[in-house]
């Protein structure tokens, strides 16, 4: 009797179900936090944890307005500023890194230096060590130059940290392009600038989006440098979040969960907007040709 074999190109319900279960386990912590954000303090601390409860928006309100312990009146918190800081610092530095990285990547791809690979390797080595290794010298440099606590300081630092990654990723996209198209444009009278902006950039938009999102996620979640190098005015959400822990009334899990949930929104939104580009970006070159 012939052995049954699986039809190519179909997984079937069973596998779909198993995948859903695995996916659910991975997503569970996120779901937990989001649910907690909508719970009252009592529900959040209930044992066993409540799956069904009356949702409240109280936590979200108290992210931005909190009753003062001493006077009892509602006071605005600085969380709005911290969200602005996170968004401003992450988007600016990743954007800058992408611009510098793209220009550098084009140069590395099209006008290789003598010993091009060595340069690229050296650029990559800056990402090999854990950031904490260089935290002391960087901290001192920031103190001496007066960059500590300023927007420029933290933006430049994040830009510097994102550039190697941007160069490597974007270079691989440029390498995949058919150089004949650039040659054709040159023959047809296009200047080098036009060749780059009109023909190279549009072809790697997907790759640029992917690079942007990866950089954004890394920067968005960065904690260590933000903790040491931002001031009161330039504090980012991860640092602010850590500061809500502790204090005289203990950990307010509902409040923390609400901040985390809000913190997820921008990155989720960007990733969602760019998802088609992202998929094309990360699979760039593997499906072409």
């Amino acid at each position: 009797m012939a052995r049954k074999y699986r039809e190519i190109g179909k997984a079937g319900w069973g596998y779909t179900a198993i995948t859903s279960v695995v996916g659910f386990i991975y997503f569970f912590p996120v779901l937990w936090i989001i649910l907690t954000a909508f719970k009252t303090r009592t529900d959040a601390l209930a044992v066993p944890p409540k799956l069904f409860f009356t949702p409240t928006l109280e936590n979200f309100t108290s992210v931005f307005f909190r009753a003062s312990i001493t006077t009892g009146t509602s006071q605005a918190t600085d969380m709005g500023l911290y969200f602005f800081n996170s968004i401003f610092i992450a988007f600016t530095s990743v954007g800058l890194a992408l611009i510098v990285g793209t220009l550098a990547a084009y140069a590395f791809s099209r006008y290789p230096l003598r010993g091009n690979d060595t340069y690229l390797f050296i650029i990559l080595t800056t990402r090999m060590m854990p950031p904490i290794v260089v935290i002391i010298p960087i901290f001192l440099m920031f103190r001496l130059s007066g960059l500590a606590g300023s927007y420029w300081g933290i933006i430049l630092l994040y830009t510097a940290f994102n550039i190697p990654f941007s160069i490597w990723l974007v270079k691989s996209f440029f390498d995949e392009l058919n150089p004949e198209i650039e040659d054709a444009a040159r023959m047809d009278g296009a200047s080098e600038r036009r060749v780059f902006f009109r023909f190279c950039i549009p072809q790697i938009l997907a790759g640029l989006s992917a690079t942007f999102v990866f950089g954004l996620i890394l920067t968005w979640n960065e904690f260590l440098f933000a903790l040491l190098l931002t001031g009161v005015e330039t504090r980012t959400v991860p640092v602010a979040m850590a500061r809500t822990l502790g204090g005289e009334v203990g950990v307010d899990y509902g409040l923390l969960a609400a901040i985390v949930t809000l913190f997820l929104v921008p990155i989720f939104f960007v990733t969602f907007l760019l998802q088609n580009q992202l998929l094309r970006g990360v699979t760039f070159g593997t499906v072409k040709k």
Partner: protein
Amino acid sequence: MTIELKKLTKRFGSLTAVDAIDLDVGDGEVLCLLGPSGCGKTTTLRMVAGLEYATEGDIYLQGARVNDLAPRDRNVAMSFQFYALYPSLSVAENLAFPLHADGLSRAEIEQRVKRISDTLQLDKILTRTPGQLAEGEKQRVAVGRSIIRDPQCFLFDEPLSRLDVQLREEMRGEIKEVLQDLSKPTVIVTHDQLEALTMADRIAVMRDGRIEQVDTPHNVFQSPENLFVAGFIGTPQMNLLPATLTGTNGHGTADFAIAGGQSMTIEVDPRIADLAQGANVTLGIRPRNLEISHDPAPDGISTKIDIVEPMGAETLAHLSDGQHDLRLVADWRVPLSEGDQVHTRFPPGATHVFTENEQVLRSAP
């Protein structure tokens, strides 16, 4: 002379891709650079286009030296192997792109696009992007884009290599027609000899960065100047049989000893008399010129039929004398069966003699 190359050389590090070649292409002439891959033909084309710097030597277009001019200042049109259509632009925009640099009016651009799309039957696909085109259409657009301007000369890099056999034949005719109308100097790079033989006015056969022979398709085929050209041009390949000259009898008749003990007396170029007795030569004869008989004859050697390959109107047979393989093409009606003993015959004048330095036999210098 409108394209003129003088001692043109290109070196990549220690590798010499193009080695001091001299070449000229006249007005309205179509010249094919033909050679195996890596022989330097594309590099030569790219130097003319300005996409590669020449290491040494000079390039003249319409009499002016252009070595130091950027591609866009040379007024040369080039069509690329992979078409190099601009992926984000529509067909119409692709066609119009070269015209923008010339600063033409919108009306003039539209008119030219219309004219080209009529000539090449592109009117139905003008709004599509390159990703939506079939291979043949892409090729048409690429040709259209290269001829839309009024350049000094045309360069084609492997124009038909990506098309299937049927389309290739069709496009070969079309391109030839277009080129005839333009009557501009044109250089076509190809590794396909059929393409070169059918489209070119003259063929330059290249090997290892050097030009081995420049001549009309007919002459390159009929009178190859050296062993490489003889072996490279023509399908099936020319039979090349190493032999030793054992005697000359006047009027070009000579005796040759073939390794393996056989000998034959055939009529070749009369200049064979200039060669010394015992000279090592290579005898070349096209598979279609080789004849067979069932009776032994002095003007050939006896062989066994190894393999028979029917090719429709003709039959290709692989013959062997135990040491050498010979290819023979005969009319399909000639009965040939594997394992048969046959006698080959080298008809008068059909055999090329190449001397030890791989050059065809010439009068003593």
